[in-house]
C-alpha cells in the first residue's frame, strides 16, 4: 500500500508490505523491516535490525501522532493512489472559522457584513483562564456569526464564516 507522508517539514512516499509477521516499509530509497509488537491500545515496540523503538500512537484527523522518546510527530498521511487525504481535507469555499479548543466566547470583534483583512482579530475566546484572540487567515466579508458573547463552545464548533 502506498502513502504520501508528511511530518516535521519533511514529505516522503511510503510503501507498506506485510510478509511473515514482519512489515516491509520503503521510505523513498530506504527499506526498513519492522518487527512490530502492539502493546495495549496506544504503544508499539518496534525492532529494526536490532534497533529498538518504543513508540506511542494517537489517531489524529490528518493521520497519526507518534511519540518517540521526548519528541512528538504529527504525521499526515495521504493515499498515494487515490490521492485522498486519510484525514479531513481542508474545507473548500468560504473560510469556516472553528474553535481551536473548547472555551467561552468573551468578545466578538466583528459584525456581520463587515469586511476584514487577513490576520484581523475577529473573536476573543477564553479557555483555562487565558484569553486568546482568534484571527482570520483570509481577507473577505463576514458572512455569518454563529456564536454570541458569553457562549460556551466545543472544540471544532463553527464560529464565523468569512467569504
Amino acid at each position, binding site marked *: 500500500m502506498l502513502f504520501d507522508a508528511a511530518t516535521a517539514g519533511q514529505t516522503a512516499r511510503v510503501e507498506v508490505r506485510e510478509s511473515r509477521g514482519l512489515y516491509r516499509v520503503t521510505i523513498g530509497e530506504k527499506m526498513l523491516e519492522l518487527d512490530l509488537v502492539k502493546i495495549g491500545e496506544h504503544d508499539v515496540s518496534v525492532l529494526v535490525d536490532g534497533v529498538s523503538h518504543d513508540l506511542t500512537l494517537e489517531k489524529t484527523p490528518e493521520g497519526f501522532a507518534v511519540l518517540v522518546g*521526548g*519528541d*512528538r510527530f504529527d504525521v499526515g498521511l495521504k493515499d498515494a493512489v*487515490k490521492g485522498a487525504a486519510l484525514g479531513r481535507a481542508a474545507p473548500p469555499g468560504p473560510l469556516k472559522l472553528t474553535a481551536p479548543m473548547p472555551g467561552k466566547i468573551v468578545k466578538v470583534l466583528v459584525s456581520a457584513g463587515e469586511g476584514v483583512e487577513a490576520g484581523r482579530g475577529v473573536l476573543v475566546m477564553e479557555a483555562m483562564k487565558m484569553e486568546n484572540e482568534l484571527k482570520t487567515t483570509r481577507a473577505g466579508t463576514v458572512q455569518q456569526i454563529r456564536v454570541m458573547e458569553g457562549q460556551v463552545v466545543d472544540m471544532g464548533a463553527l464560529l464565523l464564516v468569512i467569504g
Partner: protein
Amino acid sequence: MSSPRKFSKVLIANRGEIAVRVMRACRELGIRTVAVYSEADRAALHVRYADEAYFIGPSPSRESYLKMDTILDVARRSGSEAIHPGYGFLSENAAFAKACGDEGLVFIGPPAEAIAAMGEKTSARRVAVEAGVPVVPGTLHPLVDNQAILAEAKRIGYPLMLKAAAGGGGKGLRLVQKADELEMSVDRARSEAKSAFGDDSLYIEKAILKPRHIEIQVLADKHGNVVHLFERECSIQRRHQKIIEESPSPFVTAELRQRMGSLAVALTKKVGYVNAGTLEFLVDENREPYFLEMNTRIQVEHPVTEMVTGIDLVKMQIRIAEGEALPFTQNDLTQRGHAIECRVCAEDPEANFIPNPGRIESLRVPGGPGVRDDSGVYEGLEVPMFYDPLISKLVVHAETREAAIARMLRAVSEYKITGIKTTLPFFDRALRHPKFIEGDFDTGFVARLQAEKDDRVRATEIAMAVAAVAAYRARRQFRGPMNSSTSPSSPWWLLGNRDSVTRL
C-alpha cells in the same frame, strides 16, 4: 501565642495537583482531608484522594472554588479545624483569610494583614521601598481609569508592563512596546483581571529587558523565627508564566544568594509575615536584583526547593499553622545537588501554547532514581476547560546541574500522554538547547527558541514508517478511507487483542 495544637482534619480549598500535594502531606501527618469540588470535578483526582469530598457549585470557579461562604460552610459542617488554600483561587485573598479567623478556623497561610500588605503589588512595592529594598520604577498605586494610565505611561516611557493589581500567575499581564498598543492592551488586561480576580485595576512599571526571574523561598513561624531556603530560577516562561524552574540558579553567585536572602528575610520580618512565602525579584544583566512582589502562599514550583534542601514545605506550612516553631535555623539549611521542574500543561507548544483540554487517553509516567511526578490527573480523565492547564509537575534531582538536565531529558522521554497535546515535547527541545545548558538565558528564552529552527536529530523516519503501518492496518481492517470522525477514544486501528501484548 497559643500553644501548638495539632489538626485532625483540614479542608483543602483547591483542586488539581496542588490539592493532591497538600492531601499527601496531610495523609503522612495522619490528618484527615476534606475536598471541595465543582460540577466538572466530581471524578477529579483530588476528590478520589480525599477522605471526604463535598460539592460546592457549577464549574466556573467564580461559582465554586471562589465561593467563600460555601467553602466556609463545608468547613463548618465537616468539622474541619483548618483550611489550606493551595495557590490561586482564594489563596491570596485577605478577606478570606480574615473570614476563616472569624469562623474559628485556622487559615494555613499568613495573617490577613500580611496578605493585605504584601499581596497587593503596589502596596508591597511601597513597603519594600520603605524597607530600602530596590524595586522596578513604576506606579506605586493601582490605576483605575485609562486616562491616568496613559499619563503614567508617558511619564515612565516604553517599553512598559501592564499588571493586574490583584493579579498573579501572569494573568492580566501585558508587555506594551509602543504607545499605540497601549489602549487595546489595557482593555484586554482589564477584562482578564476582571474575570480572574474580580478586580480590574491595573498598574504599570518600566519593563526591564533581558531580565532573569529569580525568587527566594522563606519560612516564618508564629514565634518570630524567619529563614530563607535559597533561590529558585524561574526565567523560562511563556506568556509571562513560568514553565521551567530550577534550584540553585546557574546565574546566582554566593554573594548574590546571600544578599537576596537577607533582603527577603528583612522584608518578611518587617510585615510580620507568617508561614511559607516567596519574594520574586527581577535580576538584570549586572546581577542587580529588583523586588517585584511577594507571593503570600505556596508556589507551584516549591518542589525544587524541597529536593535540594530536604525540607517538606507543605508539612512545614501545616506545622507552622499549628503553632510549632521552626525545627531548624538558617545555619542548618544547605543545598544538596540540583533540582529542575518542568510544568506539564495541556497546551500545544507548536501553536503558541494554546490551551488544549480534552480526555487523557493513555498515560505512562516516568520512574527510577531522582524523579518526582506531582500530578493532578489520571488515565481516562477529561481535563476540564474551566481551570488552569497545569496537569502535572515533573521534577528531578541529581548531583549536579548537568546530571539533573540529563535526568530530566530521560524522564521526559519516559512520559507518554495521548489524547491531549502537552508541553512535554517542548521540554525535550528546550533542555537540549546550548543556551539552556550553559545557563545563559532570560525571560525571553522561549520566544527566541520558537523563532529558531529545530536542529535536533529527530526520529522522523521511524515515526513516518510506524504511522504508515498503522494506516495500512486501518485500511486492511476497514476498506475505504479512514474516517476522522472515529472517536480517538477507540483506537480502532489497533483493534483485536486489546489491552494485550500481541505480535502484529
